[in-house]
């Protein structure tokens, strides 16, 4: 069983190195190989979930694999518990959809694209599965490098600028993380998460606080919380849509996983509560959420709008996690699932729709709905899910998040989040109405030439099919949200260390 975990990381890595070879030998089977790899990864995750479902429900799930057989204090350990199972499954599902979508969407430099995408996928799985902090750092840097290259993938001015900004912020974040890792090693003498967690009480308070501050700032940079959100809208809008979907939908959730893993299971959240920093985290991320949603209101570029909305939702998740209650963690994890699915769906739909417009500007969005009505209805469904309309997944996570805030008597925060959900309705409706707006076509004064932005749209069928599949996934995950309840609650118990 342990070996299977290793394969979750190895499959994408091997595929990444296989693609250049395949390109040399026989280019045409590349898409077969990548689809097989994505599918294999998904099946492997599903297999792990199905065989361990009972253990996951009781919270006893703990599968380990020692790399090279070295004991934990020396070697690297891979481990799978409830939390990593949830995130690993999410990464697999999301990446499978994105990779199949990319087959239809990306039409140029495909070789490089898939190498980077699979490396990114391997790195994300590695982050989720590793039990060693330094190993975690290595995977984080791998993520930064591959995703920066993907941000610049369009090779235009905008993309390069965004990638430079992204890499500056990413490197600073990585550096802070590395300093934190070094301090942990010098004070604890080991980098294995379990051992660090056991010995962490012996570290003196100032050092603990310093380490926590370093990790916190690093992760806030990576997650795009308010003073460090500047890179996010740029990076998430400059790249091709499937990459935006990966960055906005999946990658940020992986950093959220590191946030939970480090601060709850390694250092213990009590540290923050003791120093009052938990309120700092909650209110800063709520502020960040407000900033994200309000800035999305003015955004005339739909992809930047979605990116700002991501800032808003990430702030909401971090705030509710910061409450450190079972209800808060449950709501946060549920929102991770729903935001991942919905944002991914929105980005891939927008990627499709923007093929019919000259630019990303809202003025060019007029009448887009008539290009493909079904896809636009999927867009409306995903947008309403994001706003929080039952029975779509966004509603249930919003419900539990608000419940968590009200349970801890934070009524103002709950009211703020409700107002922000109304604000988000406004900015989505703006684009929905634009989509149905036929003004420019009706007037006839300015005949619009519709030009395909890239000459890549040669497998439209795959693109639309993936869009429908993910929309169906969104709807089913909303209707059957109660299926997640037991495993997530078990994961929450694991995080908080509550037995039974």
């Amino acid at each position, binding site marked *: 069983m342990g070996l299977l975990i290793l394969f979750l990381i190895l499959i994408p890595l091997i595929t990444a190195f296989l693609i250049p070879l395949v390109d040399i030998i026989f280019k045409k089977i590349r898409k077969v190989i990548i689809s097989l790899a994505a599918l294999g990864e998904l099946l492997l995750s599903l297999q792990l979930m199905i065989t361990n479902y009972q253990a996951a429900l009781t919270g006893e799930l703990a599968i380990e694999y020692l790399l090279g057989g070295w004991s934990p204090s020396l070697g690297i350990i891979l481990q799978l518990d409830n939390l990593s199972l949830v995130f690993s499954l999410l990464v697999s599902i999301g990446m499978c959809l994105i990779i199949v979508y990319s087959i239809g969407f990306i039409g140029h430099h495909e070789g490089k694209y898939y190498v980077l995408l699979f490396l990114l996928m391997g790195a994300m799985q590695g982050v989720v599965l590793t039990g060693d902090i330094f190993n975690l750092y290595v995977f984080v840097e791998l993520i930064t490098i591959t995703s920066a290259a993907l941000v610049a993938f369009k090779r235009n001015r905008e993309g390069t600028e965004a990638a430079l900004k992204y890499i500056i912020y990413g490197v600073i974040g990585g550096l802070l993380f590395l300093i934190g890792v070094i301090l942990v090693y010098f004070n604890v003498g080991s980098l294995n998460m379990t051992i660090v967690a056991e010995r962490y009480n012996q570290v003196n308070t100032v050092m603990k606080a310093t380490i926590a501050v370093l990790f916190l700032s690093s992760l806030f940079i990576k997650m795009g919380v308010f003073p460090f959100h500047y890179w996010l809208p740029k990076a998430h809008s400059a790249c091709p849509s499937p990459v935006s979907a990966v960055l906005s939908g999946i990658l940020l959730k992986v950093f959220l996983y590191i946030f939970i893993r480090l601060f709850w299971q390694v250092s213990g959240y009590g540290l923050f509560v003791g120093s009052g920093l938990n309120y700092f985290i909650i209110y800063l991320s709520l502020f960040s959420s407000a900033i994200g949603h309000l800035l999305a209101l003015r955004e005339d570029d739909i992809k930047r709008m979605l990116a700002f909305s991501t800032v808003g939702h990430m702030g909401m998740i971090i705030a509710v996690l910061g409450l450190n209650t079972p209800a808060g963690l449950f709501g946060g994890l549920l929102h991770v699932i729903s935001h991942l699915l919905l944002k991914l769906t929105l980005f891939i739909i927008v990627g499709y729709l923007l093929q019919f417009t000259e630019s990303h500007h809202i003025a060019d969005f007029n009448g887009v709905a008539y290009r493909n009505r079904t896809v636009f209805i999927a867009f409306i469904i995903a947008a309403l899910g994001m706003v929080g309309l039952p029975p779509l997944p966004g509603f249930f996570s919003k419900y539990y998040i608000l419940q968590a805030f009200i349970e801890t008597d934070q009524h103002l925060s709950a009211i703020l989040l409700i107002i922000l959900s*109304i604000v988000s309705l406004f900015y989505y409706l703006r684009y929905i109405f634009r989509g149905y707006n036929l003004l420019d076509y009706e007037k006839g004064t300015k005949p619009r030439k519709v030009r395909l932005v890239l000459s890549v749209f040669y497998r439209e069928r795959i693109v639309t099919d993936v869009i429908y599949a993910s929309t169906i996934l969104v709807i089913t995950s909303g209707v059957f949200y109660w299926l997640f309840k037991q495993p997530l609650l078990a994961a929450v118990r694991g995080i908080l260390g509550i037995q039974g």
Partner: protein
Amino acid sequence: MAGLFSDFFRIDSLNHLFAATGLVVTFLSILSIRANIEQRRLEYFLTNIVYIISFLVVIYSRNWLVFFIGWEMVTVSTTLMLLWRSRGLAGQYFIVQFLGSSILLYVVLVAQKAGYSEIILIKEIWLQNLLILGLGMKSALFGFHFWLPPIHSQAPAPVSAILSGWVVKLGLITMLKLIPGGNSLLLILGVLMIFYGGIRALRSSDYKVLLANSSISQLGYIAIGIGSGTVYGHLGSILYIIAHGLAKTGLFVGSGYLIRETGSRSIYQFREIWKKQRLLSVSILAGFSSLIGIPLFIGYNAKYLVKYGLKGELFFTILLYAAGLLTWLYSLRFLYWGIFKDLLEKKRNMDSLKQNYSLDRADRLLLSIVVVLLLMGGLSSGVLTSLISEKVFEYHLIEGLMENIIYVFISVLLLKKAGWYKTKDNEVPSLDSLFNRINKGLYNLGRNLYNWIYQDFQYQLLWLPLFLLILFLWVNFISG
């Protein structure tokens, strides 16, 4: 499975009664599709089915989450129905309803925290008041009523019938289940609604706006019945919900035919309706009779019970008599201008008696059903109340008749003196300008915020040392 079902839903005779009324209202509005919905009738019908399922969920549910899901599905399905008029209208309605359900979501969560894990009677007054505010937007209680006249008057006739006849009642039905011992806030809001809606109805020249304003006024009676907290008041508001549901549905559906017939919505343009459309006029008469509360119609019994519930309080009794006069005034004014004016005039123009719209079998059936139901409800109110309560009532029909005769004299006198109160044709109320302003305001808010937050790149990077400094200071010195 049965256990799971009863966890989420409560099956009792009161809920059956509401569900049956809701189904009748929806059925009546579907019957009038022919005159009002030209395209995509199948889709319209399917939307209606979704709507039926969701309002049944709202009525029967005992679990807050299920209730809320049903509530939002009602919003979505009615929004979809409004698409048959225009996207803008549907968007406005959706935003307003989403605003209302957002407030409700907060209130529901607060109620859950206060220990009410189910939809049951609530004891705390503050929580009751909060719930009234939460349900207020959907039920267009006073203060939240701004959206009702524009949207109900612009919607297609069958959709107006559903919205005005049933959807606004859902909030009041929920209040009925939550507020046992009366609530003074609801009482005050109810009185304000009766007079506000009545006066606005008296001044309207557009038939559908008049009906929408009269809806606000009539909802006030239901609110008063619930707010009074007496058994009679409660029973009265239950009967009132049924009575107003049927009457307003009939009137709104009738307004569709009337507008098709005359080609105008202004009540001054309605010509020779009594001659041309006899059945339609009879149904309108029956509808208004029920609204006014003329004996033999169900509206009379409902109004009688609500009044009886407030008998002890002199102030409210006087207000209710005044309200009765107000209802007579706006009804008579409409009946004069809309139906009987040409009959009463001596010099008549007989050459334009050709019908522009002829009722077909479904339309006739629909209008007859409305009249029959209004009369039957009045004659068999005892049967309806016996489903819920053991009490037997004497409705004092003769005294009610006398009272109404006095009202007629006074109101005819007043209206004649005012020349039947002809107002100027004003524009159909619309939320467009409001929403334009909101949109612009929000956009500017975002832009200003953006200009404030986004500075040059080097300043953006300066946040990092600042952030680290604050955090280090915080953990090392401030928190000690």
